[in-house]
């Protein structure tokens, strides 16, 4: 009797806790949606939102500069990080002596745990001055942010890429080598194509991390709300603007609603990434 009672309580507890998770998620969505309602429902809302003008004093809440900032920084960071990460992943999973491989993988995993503020701090000392000296301006720029973000994504991407390559059945590698393929041919013709779904998922994880990264980017991007005029000009992203303005606008104000819209945009972007990722589910 007591056994049964305990079992029933366990079941209920599990349901309750996982239910709380669902409620919290829905609650988050609802609060962001409700918060952004005044702006979304205003006349010409989309046109005003997507305007390049963010000027709180004039009542202009265009978030286009931040969308551009987020997209450019993330895209550029990935363009920089992917080749390096792929090379690291190939070294770790195929080229290093087999005895060293597990240790190298562990080092990669450890690197992924470095807090992003450390990368920002490093970028402040190393990247910003270099960009200033080579490109002029203050050095605080989209380019500096992209470089810092790329370095930050490098270990994560390498680790996930290496996992993807290691997931390919060794029997494919055997078959390829037995047909007289060189290790390079096997890599390009078998390993990478066979690991493609996992590689793409790894890439999407990196996109999500890049879009969501706040601290490291904020420390080097310059925090300017005007539309960036080039890679060397300072800017802001959806996340950094949310961070810097969070304490500025009390709930109920237009500014607060605008920040809610930005949060909503980030959630929507993540939802889209998850959809794409599901399409590349392993084994389809």
């Amino acid at each position: 009797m007591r056994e049964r009672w305990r079992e029933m309580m366990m079941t209920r507890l599990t349901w309750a806790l996982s239910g709380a998770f669902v409620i919290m998620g829905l609650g988050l969505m609802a609060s962001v949606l409700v918060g952004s309602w005044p702006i979304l429902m205003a006349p010409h809302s989309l046109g005003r939102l997507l305007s390049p003008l963010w000027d709180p004093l004039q009542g202009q809440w265009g978030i286009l500069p931040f969308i551009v900032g987020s997209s450019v920084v993330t895209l550029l960071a990935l363009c920089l990080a992917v080749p390096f990460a792929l090379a690291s992943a190939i070294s770790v999973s195929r080229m290093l002596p087999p005895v060293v491989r597990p240790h190298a993988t562990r080092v990669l995993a450890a690197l992924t745990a470095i807090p992003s503020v450390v990368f920002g701090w490093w970028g402040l000392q190393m990247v910003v001055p270099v960009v200033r000296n080579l490109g002029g301006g203050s050095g605080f720029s989209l380019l500096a942010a992209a470089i810092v973000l790329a370095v930050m994504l490098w270990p994560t991407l390498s680790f996930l890429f290496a996992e993807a390559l290691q997931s390919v059945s060794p029997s494919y590698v055997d078959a390829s080598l037995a047909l007289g393929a060189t290790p390079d041919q096997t890599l390009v013709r078998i390993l990478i194509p066979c690991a493609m779904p996992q590689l793409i998922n790894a890439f999407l994880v990196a996109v999500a991390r890049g879009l969501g990264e706040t601290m490291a980017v904020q420390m080097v991007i310059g925090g300017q709300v005007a539309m960036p005029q080039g890679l060397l000009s300072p800017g802001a992203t959806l996340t950094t603007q949310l961070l810097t303005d969070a304490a500025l606008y009390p709930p109920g104000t237009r500014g607060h609603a605008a920040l809610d819209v930005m949060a909503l945009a980030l959630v929507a972007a993540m939802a889209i990434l998850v959809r794409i990722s599901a399409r590349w589910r392993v084994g389809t």
Partner: protein
Amino acid sequence: MAPNIRTESLTVSYRRTVVLRQISLEAVGGEVLALIGPSGCGKSTFLRALNRLVEETPGAHVTGRVFLGEMNIYSSAVDVTELRRRVGMVFQAPNPFPFSIFDNVAYGPRLRGVSDAAELRRIVERSLQEAALWDEVRGKLRRPALTLSGGQQQRLCIARALAVRPEVLLLDEPTAALDPVSTEKIEELVSNLRGRYTIVMVTHNLRQAARVSDRTAFFDDGSLVEVGLTRQIFTAPRDPRTEQYLTGRYFP
């Protein structure tokens, strides 16, 4: 004319464990040589030593010599890629690549730079015919290879190996994962390929060895116990261990 393949004092070890000891054995050109023996006796390693695939295993160390025709395949002048073209291999579990049927068979020729579509089509058709799979897959060459049945997949792997025109075929328990009907088809295929290729086949199925091979070699614990004409091995083995193994009374 299919070449002989001959080992002289072939020894293979992984790190400190010796898995093959001083094997001197010859597969006669155009014949089928069956390798039998308890699990873990080194048969598969022996096979993988014949195309130097054993070297891909970390820590593997090979001594002794292996001759393909007159060429010592472990000499430093040998191009491993070309060696593996001449010595094809089929594995225990069917392992077609997750590509189309066509791309599986065309994989080897493409590695060697064949890119002409008509030429590739000709090679693919010829190889599939030789592997007795053509009639079942014609008109479906663009389908994923993994949609084929297990037995068809294994014949596809044989076709893939044949597409690079090898002279020797190494078969590592090619029917271990197959049902009896598919097994019979593979055995029939091996009988048809005999003469054109030198075939070395590892098998745990003694009847299979008796049915398809010309010669049989019995391995035990990394050593070659005895080799001879299959009829002789199965009817009058010289070594008592062979007789015990063949009659199911051998417990190593």
